[in-house]
């Protein structure tokens, strides 16, 4: 391969290695920022709230915030570096080293030419390219700044994950939501159904229901720690929602009623007539009544 081409390709490879490093640093920064935001906003709680609608298993809910943050980080980093593939290395060198511009471009455009002048130009450009390095094309300050940002964001995310008091209680968010939208506010009487057209707390046909068997979820604050008192349904939660109709429709067989009871349903004359019967007759009538009740 031509010496000039070899030199250019080597410089280009070095440069794009650095750009890949910047991409990874940006990815980590964005991930850390969004993960921290999700922790602060307790996004897990909201996913849990919405899980019945999407049938998300509980053990999956815990890994959703980091996955979501990672997806956002990938999208963000890709957007930040969307023009990376369009970078023309030669133009970059020309911009950074204006003295090299015409020489480099001419040598590059005439790379396939072979004559004494072109060869001398190529040699000149190769020797001039010794001052060019990938580290000069991407300033060290840019890389250092990104590394510092990564450290700051990761530290912040770690700090928030270890200190739950920095997380905003879902009630606060719910109240703010209530204040902003008026939904659930007693004064305004606006319900989510007014906005979505769907009644609040209604279950979807075929689903297991919200599992909110004792009203709205509560957060108890004990010794500075917020504990979610919501009774969730599902596997391993210890709760199973049953349909109330299953119990109300059960038939319980009662014991055979005595003659007195049988007589109680007849007229006054009939009752006194029964009472005048002998004990054997009474036993026989009672047996009859029992047998009748079995039909």
């Amino acid at each position, binding site marked *: 391969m031509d010496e000039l081409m070899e030199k250019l390709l080597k410089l280009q490879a070095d440069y794009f290695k650095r750009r890949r490093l910047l991409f990874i640093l940006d990815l980590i920064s964005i991930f850390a920022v969004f993960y921290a935001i999700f922790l602060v906003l307790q996004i897990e709680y909201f996913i849990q709230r919405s899980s019945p609608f999407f049938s998300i298993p509980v053990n999956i809910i815990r890994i959703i915030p980091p996955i979501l943050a990672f997806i956002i980080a990938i999208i963000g980093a890709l957007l930040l570096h969307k023009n990376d593939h369009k970078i023309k290395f030669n133009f970059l060198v020309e911009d950074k080293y204006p003295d090299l511009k*015409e*020489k480099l*471009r*001419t*040598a*590059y*455009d*005439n790379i396939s*030419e072979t*004559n*004494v*002048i*072109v060869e*001398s*130009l190529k040699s*000149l450009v190769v020797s001039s390219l010794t001052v060019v390095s990938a580290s000069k094309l991407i300033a060290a300050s840019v890389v250092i700044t990104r590394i510092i940002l990564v450290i700051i964001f990761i530290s912040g995310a770690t700090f928030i994950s270890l200190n739950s008091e920095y997380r905003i209680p879902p009630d606060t968010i719910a109240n703010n939501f209530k204040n902003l939208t008026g939904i659930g506010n007693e004064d305004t009487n606006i319900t989510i159904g007014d906005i979505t057209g769907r009644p609040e707390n209604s279950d979807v046909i075929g689903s297991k229901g919200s599992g909110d068997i004792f009203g709205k979820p509560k957060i108890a604050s004990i010794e500075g720690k917020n504990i979610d008192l919501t009774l969730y349904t599902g596997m391993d939660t210890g709760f199973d929602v049953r349909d109330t109709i299953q119990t109300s429709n059960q038939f319980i067989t009662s014991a055979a009623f005595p003659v007195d009871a049988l007589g109680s349903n007849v007229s006054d004359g009939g009752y006194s007539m029964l009472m005048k019967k002998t004990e054997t007759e009474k036993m026989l009538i009672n047996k009859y009544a029992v047998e009748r009740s079995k039909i």
Partner: protein
Amino acid sequence: MSNETYASSTRIFKELLDEIGKVVVGQHEAVEQMMIAILCNSHALVESNPGLAKTLTISTISKALDLKFNRIQCTPDLMPSDITGTYIIEDIGGKKQYRFEPGPVFANIVLADEINRASPKTQSAMLEAMQEKQVTVGNKTYLLDKPFFILATQNPIEMEGTYPLPEAQLDRFLLKILMDYPTFEDENEIVNRYTKNIVPAVNSVVSKTQVLELQKLTRDVPIAEDIKTRAIKIVIATRGKNEHIEYGASPRASIGIILAAKARSLMKGRNYVSKEDIDTMAYPVLRHRVILAFESERKGMTTDQVISDILKNVK
């Protein structure tokens, strides 16, 4: 051989300009452009007032280049055969034979002084020599020696009794060189040099072979695509919508600008064509190819002003 010439080209041009500078005071741009025309294996038209050392400059260049130089003073009664040559009857061994007597065009460097005074017939005779580098007399064609360069001069004043060169012939000149009056310092030097008994002499510093090699090297100078595009855009900008221009330049102008820029870069010791080369050479290449609109000419605009505007607007 070519490698050696290229390696020593910077020195050659320096020595050449120094040698010419011994005789010609100032006029650096004109000398440079004449050299460029020679390197491009083309021709140049010089326009200047009388007494500005046109003949001296070109004859000095020919001496420095060790080339055969001829001068033709054009007049209305100058015949084509006066330029190309003619058959003469010669007595050889008691037999009378026609022998071709070459005209002044059979030289390496020809100065056609006041070419616009020659009749169109004579001017067109020169056309074949300029373009084809050959002369046809009768049924026979004679090749001209290489290198071949015609420097024609025009006097911008005293236009009476002249035959302005047709556009087709103008287009065959690579450059139109303007020679202006010298500065005070230069004129003072001219006076000092030419009022003494010792007349400055010129030594040959380049051989004919080297001139031919330099001509070949000129075409080898590489040019970047964007620079080439700029040259073409400049020429295209002279056509069409420009309100100041009646007729624009032909594609021959694009070739001319690039070739002249290559020669200039070689003379400057550069191994690539720069944007500056293109912009500098756009003036002499275009100024005789662009015909100004009547209104612009009436307002006193010059072709150089229009070219300057074009250069500013072309990205």
